[in-house]
Every structure is written in structure tokens, then in C-alpha cells.
């Protein structure tokens, strides 16, 4: 068995070992190193890099806590925007469905920079959005979207919502329409049928979507880099800046470790929350 | 993995007797973990013979065929083709034709390319290849379809291409795995006849796997009946029906009534079956049975006389009609015997209709009654 499996699997596995596992390990190791003379990495075993971040209220509030909050908010909005779309798409067929699916998937295949460019045209001071809003008398002075938290959230939702739709569709398509009909048949209203039958069955898809979108949002750096400002210092952006602009690889590494750890903690929290919801439903049924 | 000629010689003793049979399967086994899919199967196929492997799904017939073709490794035993040990050869070295259940026509190749692929591998000259394609397609009635893609053909035509592809290589032996099972019934009957005619004309040694007893009985010289990974009986179709060796065969091939009893020798080639009621049925002895041993008497439904008037004689059973069904050409009765057993009877040339609830007498001739040893397997 091994003799038959090893040759085809080895190249990919070795590539992943050398270019993923070892580098990831090396990030962990580097996070304990020191930066000497502002440029050279010196082998050490210190927690200074962690202390520098965790001991600094500015970093904790404006970077870590800010990233968590903005990621949660953007994820929640993505779910609110994505759920109805998935519900609608699952009922469509043929050309209509193909068009809707193409539109949903377009943001995932068109590059980020390209999309950001479109949003910049929309967002900027005298841009489309402001002209539109002023013309519609929503407000009468241009509002700042570019280099602002509003723009960052809108873009995170723009990229996150399609993932939510796709994950939910996976779940929704598995629900037999007979289930809903059966519920209606025994007297459930449309709303009750949705709430008691469809919604619980989309929990796995919803959870999968939340995990992906939250992780993407939490680690985002390109979006705050391109349309954020000094008030949107997300942790991914700090990593980028420390690594590439300040060349402080130990600090960037420590930040990466913190980011992965916090991300994992939040996902575990979500899993526990979702697990409880599903368990509660089972209890209630009994 | 690559045992070759050296071991082949050692196996020769096991392969006794040496014969010029086209296929020899000797004590072949296939196990998946602790499950035995094929359990000690042996049979031969003579040159030019048409042999079917018949059995219900999961009986190991397809696995056996795939082991002969080399698609599945054997767990034990040996396979010879024209005296050459092939047990451990890769499939491409075995020179056997194979027709798949789903035809397995390569979807990216035209009909002609499908047929030509094997010929090209053999580095035949171009004009030879062209002739062989033409010949194989004309034999299978597909001339003019050379440039079609498989998906542009009907199921029956695809089936013919699969056959042409196998025949073009003039294999020593043709293996077919339920080749007609994906066709609708009417076409299946037509193809069955064509296939048989073609096989007889080309004197092509054929091993044919099917779960359809009609197919196996009508096409084969001999049938290997398999059940649960084992061979139940190997015999000509007529023999299978007339002289089933086991209850499984009797049940699988046609419908049979079973009456249990103990054997007693009657002399003169006759055997008696003492039923629990004490009545003794007389039968011709075809299979050796032990005196006093548990046996089953087999009665084919169409080999009985049924009468509303009392009959006399040794093989008369009395009972009451529970159900009588009229099918036009045939009347089927379900009779509850006085001893409590159910017996089915069919009457083809009837001039009276016996209503349900009537008392009847059923008679069967000793030469129509078969006796098999009681098989604890059921």
C-alpha cells in the first residue's frame, strides 16, 4: 500500500512540508528572536516581541480589539446580506440561476486590487456614491468613505458575502423541498416552516460560512492597506508593515502567532456557541 | 507482485490435468479483509465453447471474470489461458478480449479510433489496421459509423462498438461482463441472438457473465452457477434445469417445489422419498443419495397432473386449491397439500378450470421427480 501511495503523494506532501510546515514553524521560532540595530535578526529566546504588543494598550485596543470588532461586524453584515440571497438562489433554475451564481462568484475570481479600484471610483470625495447620495438628498455634504472605516467594512462585506452565499447554498440544496411541504401540510405557516425546518438545517452551512468569512476578515491586510487610514490599523496590516516596511521580522512573527491564536480562540468560541444551539434544539425536540 | 514464469512451473502440478482448454480456472480465491468474495472456484472453458457464469448479484461472478482479465488481483489459485499461466500478468499482457457492462468506449475517440487503439499499440501497418477496422465494424453491423463519437450512438450501437473493439484484436478468448444488461428488453433479445450467432460463426471461446438465467440458458454450451462466492453447479443448460444439483440451482433456474423427506433405496435405479406423512414418493435416482439420509424431492410445477377427481398411484398428493390464476396460455394453481406444504402447479393444455377451494389430487411421474441431498446451507 505504502509503495503504491508514496510516489504520487510524496511530491505534494514534501512541497507542503518544505514550503508550509517548516516556514510556519520558523515564524514561531522567529517570534522569540530579537532585532538588533534595527535590521538584523539575532537568535534569542525572548518574549519581548509579545510583551511589546500585549503590553501596549494602543496595540491592544486599536489593533487587536479593533480587528476583532470590525471582523465580527463585517461578518455579521455579510451573513445578513448573504442569507436571503442564498434563500432566493436555491429556488431559481436555469439561466436566472447561472446569472445570479456568476455575479456571486465574480468578486472571488476578480482580483482584489481590480475590485478596490472600482470602489475607489465610487467612494472618493466627489465620486459616484456621494453624488448619488446627495442627489437623493440622503445627505448634503460629501461623506468620506475612502481612507475610512466605512469603506473597509463595505469592502470586507463585498468579499465576505459571496462566501456566505456559497456555504449556505451547500446546506440549502440538501434540504428536500418535501420537508418544507410536509411542514406546511401539517399546518405550519411559511414563516414557521422556515424557522423550524429550513433554518436549523442551514446551521452547518452558516457555521462554515462564518468560519471562513471571519478568518478572512480578521486577517485582512490588503483592504485596510488600500482604502483604510490611521484609524483602521488592523492586525494583518501591522504585520505587513512591520515585516516589509520596518523589516522587524521577530515582531511581525509574534504578531502572526497572536493573530492565529486569537483567531483560533474565536473560532472555538463560535463552535461552542453553534454546538450549544444545535444541542438545545435536540433537547427541545426530546 | 511480479511473480512470473519461475513460479508458473511450480504451479503446474496443481493445474492437473493438463488440457488444451482455452481457459482453466483452478481454486481461485478473492478475499477483501475477512470477506471471501470468490471462494475456491474452479472451471474450464473449452476451445470454441460458450460458457456463462450465472448467479445473483454479489455471487462473485464478475470478480471471477475480472480476475481472469487481470483487473483484480487473485488472493489464491491459478488461471491459465491456452495453457499459459496468466495469474500474475498485468492485464495488457493477457491477450483477452473484454466487453464491459457499460461498454467503456473511450469518449474522446471516434468509433474507428476506439477499434484501432489496440491495433496501433501492436504496431500493425496502417492498411492492416484499416482492413481490420472495416472487418470488425462490418461483422458487428456498424459500417458507416467510423467517424461517430460514442455519445452519438444508441446503447445498442455502443454495445456493438465494444464488441468490434474486442474482436478486432482477434483475442484468444472473449470475456463479457453483463454486456446486454444496459439495453431495453426487446433489444436485449435481438442482441442475444446476434451475439450467439456471431460467436458460433467465429468459434470464439467466450466466457459470459450474467444474472439473467434466460440469457445464460439460451446462449451457453455450459453454465457455471455461482452463489456466495462458490460454484454450485457446472452443467449444460438442459442438465441444469432437469437435474439441478442443489436446492439453490433448482430455485434459481426456474420455479421448483421442494418436499423434504428421507431417502430409501428402491432398487432398479429408483429411489424412494419418505415424506413426514409416511407417504413414499418414487423417483429416478440421478444423484447418489445415502440410504436414510435427509433429501429433498423436487417437483417442477409444469411436470404434474392436477385433477379434481381422485387419482391413484404411488406419486399422488392430495390437497386443496388455495389460489388459481389464469394467464391465458397457462393456469397456475397454488395448492395447500394435506401435509400442510404449498405446491405450485402449472397447466398449459387445460380444458377445465379448477376453482379455488376445490379438493384436488396431484400426480407426478417418477421420471419427473428429482431428488437432491438435503443441504444444511438451505
Amino acid at each position, binding site marked *: 500500500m505504502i509503495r*503504491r501511495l508514496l510516489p504520487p503523494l510524496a511530491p505534494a506532501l514534501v512541497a507542503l512540508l518544505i514550503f508550509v510546515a517548516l516556514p510556519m514553524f520558523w515564524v514561531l521560532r522567529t517570534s522569540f528572536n530579537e532585532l538588533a540595530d534595527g535590521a538584523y535578526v539575532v537568535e534569542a529566546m525572548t518574549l519581548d516581541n509579545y510583551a511589546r504588543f500585549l503590553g501596549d494598550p494602543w496595540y491592544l485596543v486599536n489593533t487587536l480589539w479593533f480587528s476583532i470588532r470590525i471582523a465580527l461586524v463585517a461578518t455579521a453584515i455579510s451573513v445578513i446580506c448573504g442569507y436571503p*440571497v442564498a434563500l432566493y438562489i436555491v429556488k431559481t433554475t436555469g439561466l436566472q440561476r447561472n446569472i*445570479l451564481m456568476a455575479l456571486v462568484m465574480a468578486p472571488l*475570481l476578480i482580483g482584489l486590487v481590480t475590485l478596490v479600484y*472600482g470602489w475607489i471610483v465610487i467612494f472618493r470625495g466627489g465620486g459616484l456614491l456621494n453624488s448619488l447620495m446627495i442627489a437623493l438628498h440622503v445627505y448634503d455634504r460629501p461623506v468620506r468613505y475612502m481612507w475610512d472605516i466605512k469603506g473597509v467594512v463595505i469592502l470586507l462585506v463585498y468579499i465576505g458575502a459571496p462566501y456566505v452565499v*456559497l456555504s449556505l*447554498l451547500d446546506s440549502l440544496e440538501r434540504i428536500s423541498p418535501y420537508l418544507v411541504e410536509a411542514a406546511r401540510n401539517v399546518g405550519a405557516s411559511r414563516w414557521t416552516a422556515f424557522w423550524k425546518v429550513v433554518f436549523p438545517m442551514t446551521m452547518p452551512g452558516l457555521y462554515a460560512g462564518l468560519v471562513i468569512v471571519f478568518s478572512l476578515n480578521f486577517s485582512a491586510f490588503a483592504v485596510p492597506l488600500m482604502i483604510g487610514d490611521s484609524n483602521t490599523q488592523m492586525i494583518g496590516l501591522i504585520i*505587513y508593515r512591520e515585516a516589509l516596511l520596518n523589516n522587524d521580522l521577530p515582531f511581525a512573527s509574534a504578531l502572526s502567532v497572536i493573530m492565529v491564536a486569537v483567531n483560533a480562540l474565536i473560532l472555538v468560541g463560535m463552535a461552542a456557541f453553534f454546538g450549544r444551539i444545535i444541542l438545545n434544539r435536540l433537547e427541545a425536540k426530546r | 507482485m511480479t511473480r512470473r514464469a519461475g513460479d508458473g512451473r511450480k504451479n503446474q502440478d496443481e493445474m492437473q490435468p493438463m488440457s488444451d482448454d482455452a481457459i482453466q480456472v483452478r481454486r481461485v480465491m478473492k478475499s477483501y479483509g475477512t470477506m471471501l468474495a470468490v471462494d475456491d472456484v474452479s472451471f474450464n472453458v473449452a476451445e470454441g465453447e460458450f460458457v456463462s457464469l450465472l448467479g445473483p448479484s454479489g455471487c462473485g461472478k464478475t470478480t471471477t471474470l475480472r480476475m481472469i482479465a487481470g483487473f483484480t488481483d487473485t488472493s489464491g489459485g491459478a488461471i491459465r489461458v491456452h495453457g499459459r499461466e496468466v495469474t500474475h500478468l498485468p492485464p495488457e499482457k493477457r491477450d483477452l478480449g473484454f466487453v464491459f457492462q457499460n461498454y*467503456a*468506449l473511450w469518449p474522446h475517440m471516434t468509433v474507428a479510433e476506439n477499434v484501432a487503439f489496440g491495433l496501433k499499440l501492436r504496431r500493425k501497418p496502417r492498411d492492416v489496421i484499416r482492413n481490420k477496422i472495416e472487418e470488425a465494424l462490418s461483422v458487428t453491423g456498424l459500417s458507416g459509423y467510423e467517424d461517430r463519437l460514442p455519445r452519438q450512438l444508441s446503447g445498442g450501437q455502443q454495445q456493438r462498438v465494444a464488441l468490434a473493439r474486442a474482436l478486432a484484436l482477434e483475442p484468444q478468448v472473449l470475456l463479457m461482463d453483463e454486456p446486454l444488461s444496459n439495453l431495453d428488453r426487446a433489444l436485449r433479445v435481438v442482441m442475444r441472438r446476434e451475439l450467439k450467432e456471431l460467436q458460433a460463426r467465429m468459434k470464439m471461446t467466450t466466457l459470459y457473465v450474467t444474472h439473467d438465467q434466460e440469457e445464460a440458458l439460451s446462449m451457453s454450451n455450459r453454465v457455471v452457477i455461482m452463489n456466495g462466492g462458490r460454484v454450485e453447479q457446472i452443467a449444460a443448460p438442459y442438465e441444469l434445469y432437469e437435474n439441478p444439483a442443489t436446492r439453490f440451482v433448482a430455485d434459481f433456474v426456474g420455479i421448483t417445489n421442494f418436499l423434504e423427506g428421507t431417502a430409501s433405496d428402491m432398487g432398479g435405479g429408483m429411489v424412494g422419498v419418505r415424506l413426514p406423512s409416511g407417504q413414499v414418493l418414487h423417483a429416478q435416482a440421478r444423484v447418489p443419495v445415502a440410504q436414510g439420509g435427509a433429501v429433498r424431492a423436487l417437483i417442477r410445477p409444469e411436470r404434474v397432473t392436477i385433477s379434481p377427481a381422485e387419482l391413484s398411484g404411488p406419486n399422488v398428493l392430495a390437497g386443496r386449491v388455495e389460489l388459481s390464476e389464469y394467464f391465458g396460455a397457462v393456469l397456475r394453481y397454488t395448492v395447500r397439500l394435506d401435509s400442510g406444504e404449498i405446491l405450485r402447479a402449472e397447466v398449459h393444455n387445460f380444458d377445465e378450470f379448477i376453482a379455488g377451494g376445490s379438493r384436488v389430487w396431484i400426480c407426478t411421474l417418477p421420471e419427473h421427480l428429482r431428488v437432491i441431498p438435503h443441504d444444511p446451507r438451505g
Partner: protein
Amino acid sequence: MTRPDLGTIALRFFTLLMMAFLIFPIAVTLVVAVNPREFILPPNGFTLDWFKAAWSSKTFLRGMGVSLVLGLVAATLANALALPAAMALVRNDFRGKGAVNLVLMSPLLIPTTIFSLALYIWFVRVGYGSGLVPLLVGHTIHVMPYALRILTASLHNLDPSYEEAARNVGAGRTRTLFSITLPVIRTGLISSFALCFILSWNDFPISVFLAPPGWTPLPVELFSYIKFQYDAVAAALAGSLILLSALAMVIIDRLAGLRRVLRS
């Protein structure tokens, strides 16, 4: 069909709004790219001047060249790594198969920021200065799981009897691979290649970490451009990228079904 109720109408309305939201920046970019009046909407005509300018810019052409080479190499390498692995996974059942699959898909689970940083630090560590190799490696590893996913799906749909039939008429393993297996799953191969290429072509996060000086891929080039300049030439370039992505989407969807591919 029953008459659509209020809920369905609301759902449809909301979906339309969301679709408008999704198409908005794409449409705006395309409109600005062909609008003769720079950035002044609504457009008053049609011009390809911005496209001409974008396509004659030395910087952009060089970026395109880099992205092209990068995309082709990364897609080729990723598929070369993924194909044998996919075959081994589809053809065999063994203990730990799930784990192996998870390991092979792991690049999808790691945030791109961290993966890029890790590779950056790793190549510094092993003493390889800045060069093309880290960039190629980063792109290849990043897109490999997608190739694995498409190829696994195609091989699942491949009837094993095609290969058995080839072996039966005398083709060895290698011959069967090249004459039967690969041609039969060619749609999967093409869409896998197209997806890997387009993901690499459009990538920004990995390139910004790993691109060596003088080898700036197009998205990074576009990023630096719009940071300092703001004109419709950038729109034309962005528009070109959108059209190319759309083409790739059509190819992948026709051949493999986009849905299956993008599930994360």
C-alpha cells in the same frame, strides 16, 4: 406555480439589491474605462483610448509579462503536484486518507498574510535573498489546493473501466495515462489550469510580500499606480483584468462547474 407571496417578493427585491451591490464596482470600472470624459458620469460616448494607453504603458506591459509567466508556471507546477496526488487519493482507500487530504488542502486554511510572511522569513532564513523562486513557490503552493479539488472531482467522475479497457487491449500504465486518462479528464485539467492561472494572475497579498525588485506582477503594479495617480488608464487596466477573469470564469464554468471549484 402559486402566486408569489410577499416573502418571495421581498426576497427577490433584496437579492436584486445585493446583485447591484456586487456588480456595482465592476460595472463602474468598465464604464469609466470606455468613457471619453475622464471620471465624469454618465458617459458621453465610447472610446478605447484608455485601453490603448494602458496597453502601451511599459510598466503595465512588463507587469503583465511577469504575471503571465508567474501564472503559467504556478498553474503548471500546481497541477503537476496535484494530479498524481489526486489520483492516489481517488484510487485508493487507506487509513489516514482524510488526514492526508486535510494536509494537502492546508494552504487554504492558513491566512494568506501569514503564509506569505512565513515564506518570506523562510527564504531569508535559508539564505536565499530576494529572487523569483519565493514568488513562484508562494503562488504554486497557494493555488495547488484548488487544482487538487478540481482534479479529484474529475477523477471521481472518471469511470475506471475506461482505463481497464485500455489495459485490456494492450496499453501499459504510462500509455493508458497519456492516451486515455488525461484526454478523458481534459476538461477538468483545463479548468484546473485556468483557475490556478487566474488566481495567480489576480493575486495581490502573496505578490506584495514575495515579489523581488524588477519582477512586479500586474496587481502590485496597479496598486502602486492607483496609490499615486488617479486616471482612467488605471480603469482600462482594471477593466482588462476583469474581462480576462470573466473569460476564465466562463471557461471554468463550462468545463467544471464553478460552484464545485470555489467551495471553501
